[in-house]
């Protein structure tokens, strides 16, 4: 699992370089606080961790939700290619195998930040909305992929496939059952094959 450092930075224009550098310090401090110190970030501990004054933090992020939204936006922008990756149309089994590959690679790379993103989703409506939009787009693509193969049964099949390649299912295998990455890939692949064979 990655440390999240690689997906936390953002490309800046010249005019906003200073401000963006400060924002990045604060964003990184959030993850250090949550991961290393297991603390809920607030302006005081963020200031201590980032070296940015409490006043400036409050000015840039009037609420903790604003900070969570900023972090989510940066992550989403940096991870856009991974989120948008999707199998090319072709043989159903090949597409499903590729889908598993793409999604598990995404989860393995981003587990660190997504795990903590769950806390934001629990607390902040704006983060839940963003996640819902992204998941809705993914659902539509799964539907399009399966529709030629399952006709009227596509709704049911798409729901099952979406669930089996979801973050929540992956998280259960890796964090709760503590399975290896390899075993997780094998079990999810096996389940998908069983599900698409069943109808």
């Amino acid at each position, binding site marked *: 699992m990655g440390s999240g450092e690689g997906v936390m930075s953002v490309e800046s224009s010249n005019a906003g370089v200073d401000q963006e550098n400060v924002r990045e310090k604060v964003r990184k401090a959030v993850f250090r606080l949550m991961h290393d110190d297991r603390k*809920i970030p607030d302006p005081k501990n963020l200031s201590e961790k980032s070296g940015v004054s409490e006043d400036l933090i409050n000015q840039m992020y009037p609420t903790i939700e604003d900070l969570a939204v900023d972090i989510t936006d940066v992550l989403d922008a940096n991870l856009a290619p991974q989120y948008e990756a999707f199998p090319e149309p072709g043989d159903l089994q090949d597409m499903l195998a590729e889908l598993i590959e793409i999604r598990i690679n995404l989860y393995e790379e981003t587990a660190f930040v997504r795990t903590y993103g769950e806390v934001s989703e629990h607390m902040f409506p704006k983060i839940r909305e963003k996640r819902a939009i992204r998941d809705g787009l993914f659902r539509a693509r799964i539907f399009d992929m399966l529709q030629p193969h399952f006709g009227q049964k596509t709704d049911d099949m798409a729901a099952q496939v979406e669930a089996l390649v979801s973050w929540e299912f992956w998280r259960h295998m890796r964090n709760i059952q503590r399975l290896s990455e390899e075993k997780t890939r094998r079990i999810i692949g096996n389940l998908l094959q*069983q599900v698409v064979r069943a109808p």
Partner: protein
Amino acid sequence: MRINRDKTRLENSVRISIRDAALCLAAKDRVIPTLDSLVQETGLSAAQIEAYYPTMDDVANEISKVAEAMFLDLEDAMPSPGPLAQMLDELADLRARYYEAAADFKHLGDAGGHFLPSVATSVAIRSARYRASLHELLEPHFLLSTDDMVAKVEFITSWESWRHLRGLQRLSVDQAVALMKSILTAVASDVDQPVLAE
């Protein structure tokens, strides 16, 4: 003697009011409780709160105990031994009932588990208990492939799966149960091992 009894009663009531305030903040207001927010919510001083709960992990531990007592029967309910298809069907119904009843606490555990060791420990213990029950249930049907089958059934009937189906896909309870059963049926109908118990 009476003074002692009254003192104990008062202490218990303060302890319960702190615990309930933490629960209210976390479940209703979706805020992770901190010492500051508890001071605000209860009207007690930080020192008073810390006298009952020295750390936030102690508050979480108390909430875990309350939740465990409230949902123990639902959480431990497992199908009676019988034909595999029937047991898996019943298992999906039982887990759905438990997750629906305990959803607020489960969401809370998901958020708190990242910061509070006692929550993470409690989740690990409960998961292991469920895994052991599944193993016992499925072993007569799958013999040598029981481990693999338990991993799949646990995965499909897990809280994380339920949360995805209900919270992300926004399925109704009936739809989510039907989907769970459908995947379980697909898994059970594709087993190479002889199903001795049937």
